[in-house]
């Protein structure tokens, strides 16, 4: 399966303060697009601007620069601490998130949001991982699941961040308590600059004894529910240029967290300057690489909002 993934954020040259929302202004701004290029699941290194083609509303743009891993990361860890992760899964999750934090560069920043039926900001964006890890250790598993609300809160936190905003979401089950509905998630991700990676547990159970109609019904219901949840996570991550990873066992979480970090560090940031006035509203984006057999993962587009 090919995922589109890349990130977009508009960088406003004249605005440097983080408490201002990035505003896309013609003639003073550059557009940055966060792209992952993979081949057989591995990052393809060493690409130059001349290796890419970037289309904004089907118009080919000239790429001004390509950078890799030079721009610090701003990542919000959004972790499921509902009752279903109690025990071994929580321990694995804490270990995985801790290892992820340890591997960040000194310039990178991270924040921690946990969710059950309640959302908690354990730590705002910081490059000091020690208190973050301390918060991580204090987490307890209780209550239901509200990952949709938690993702919204994380995306809103990242609205003011221009440098490589990213969400790393782990959830263990279906959303049971969010106020926000499924259909509200894609527009939220579309309007955000953040790349969303998600990890969820693959709950594919062995085929049960389906001799009774009740067992068959239960099996079908389980499958429908699981498909619906996975599809939403898939759509959310794809829309943002990120990726969904399923794992059958929580003891693989640390490997997955670190793989994601390594992948993020190999993403290319393409910068280009749109010529002339920019139309407000949605812009389709397409990034191509002039090589055969590679997957290009990038955001599908962006919204341009004129300054008020």
């Amino acid at each position, binding site marked *: 399966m090919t995922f589109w993934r890349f990130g977009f954020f508009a960088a406003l040259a004249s605005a440097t303060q983080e408490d201002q*929302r990035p505003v896309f202004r013609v003639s003073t701004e550059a557009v940055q697009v966060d792209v992952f290029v993979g081949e057989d699941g591995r990052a393809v290194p060493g690409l130059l601007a001349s290796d890419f083609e970037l289309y904004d509303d089907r118009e080919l743009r000239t790429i001004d620069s390509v950078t890799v891993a030079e721009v610090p990361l701003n990542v919000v860890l959004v972790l499921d601490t509902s009752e279903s992760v109690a025990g071994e899964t929580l321990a694995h999750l804490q270990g995985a998130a801790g290892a992820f934090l340890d591997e960040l560069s000194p310039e990178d920043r991270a924040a921690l*949001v946990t969710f059950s*039926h*309640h*959302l*908690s*900001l354990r730590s705002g964006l910081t490059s000091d991982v020690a208190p973050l890890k301390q918060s991580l250790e204090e987490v307890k598993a*209780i*209550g*239901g699941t509200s990952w949709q*609300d938690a993702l*919204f*809160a994380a995306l*809103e*936190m990242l*609205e*003011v961040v221009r440098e490589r905003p990213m969400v790393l979401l782990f959830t263990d089950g279906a959303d*049971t*308590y969010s*106020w*926000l509905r499924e259909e*509200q998630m894609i527009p*939220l991700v579309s309007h955000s600059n953040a790349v969303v990676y998600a990890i969820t547990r693959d709950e594919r159970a062995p085929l049960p004894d389906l001799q009774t109609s009740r067992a068959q019904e*239960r099996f079908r*219901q*389980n499958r*429908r*529910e699981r498909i*619906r949840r996975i599809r939403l996570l898939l759509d959310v991550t794809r829309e943002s240029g990120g990726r969904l990873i399923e794992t059958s066992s929580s003891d693989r979480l640390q490997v997955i967290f670190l793989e994601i970090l390594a992948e993020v560090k190999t993403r290319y940031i393409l910068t280009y300057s749109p010529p002339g006035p920019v139309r407000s509203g949605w812009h389709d984006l397409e990034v191509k690489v002039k090589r055969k057999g590679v997957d290009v993962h990038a955001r599908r587009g962006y919204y341009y*909002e004129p300054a*008020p």
Partner: protein
Amino acid sequence: MAFGQALTLAGALILSPGRCEFFVLGTREPETELLRLVNLYRERGAPLSDLLHLSAAESQAFARRVRKVREMIAQGAQEMLEPDDACLQAASLLETEIAMTFAARSRWEEADSHFEAAWQISHLIEAPKRRLPFQRDWLLATGLFHHQLIFVNVAQEAFVRADRFLHNAVRLYPNDPEVLLAAGSILEWSGSLRWGEPAHLKEAEELYSRARRLAPADPDILLHHGWVLEKLGREDEAAAPLLQVLELEAREDFLYRSRMALGGMAERHGRLADAIAHYEAAANAIASWQVAYVALGHALHASGAHDRAREVLDRALAMDMKSADETLGGWWSYELGIALRFEPLFERMRAEVMR
């Protein structure tokens, strides 16, 4: 005396101040064992579990004895010259306690059997005028208890059994708005527990309509009715009961939930200013419930007020988990709220019987 014999004998309750006595007709032999617990219950004024510190085995033994009381009282009712309502009330409550004991151990069939017995005994109590305060509470408690049974069975995916309890409750109390409300709320959200199957919204709406005709100014019923109408896509009709809740001097949690529902409808129709106003009012009604801030944050975000949205979300994210636990998470625990009301109600009933 064997249990089988007891079933065949008529009995009588002899009025004695402060005590319940039972004699088997024809022998005048007091059945002190059978009534010991009823008297103990009345005299001590304590819940059954406190009286007996029941183990599973004790519970079964006790249940057998109480079943005997029930049968004999029921049989002997025809012969009663001066039935003692207080004794019958105590026996009825005792049955209810037994039912709760079984329910706490997930032994639903036995629990239901004892509730049925409690219901039968309660009908031995004299004329409605005399029994109204107790009877009303008891009926409500039974309805709520059925609600609990239904809820737990749905949660355990024992849907057939849950449906039976539900329809039994509605059959027993066809004109009790509380029971109709409780049954409706289970129908309304049981679908979500059935792994994504649609809830029985139409049936729930019918029950709420009936309840609303019986209690037109009950904010709980109005709220549920508005809620289910909205889920059915009948939003024009949904607004009226929700707005009526605001006009009543209702509890703040009703105001909160009504505002949240109205805000949600406004937001879905693109009336963001209205949505924001409703969510703000909800947050003002109960400042410690987080969801209003999430909803408000989203509406502000959608309206382009990003700075305010972040302020509101910052406030939400800084909220103490403890407050959420205490309220069982705010609006989403609402359906459970009905069941949670059972215990204080039962305490009131117990106190009344002890008097």
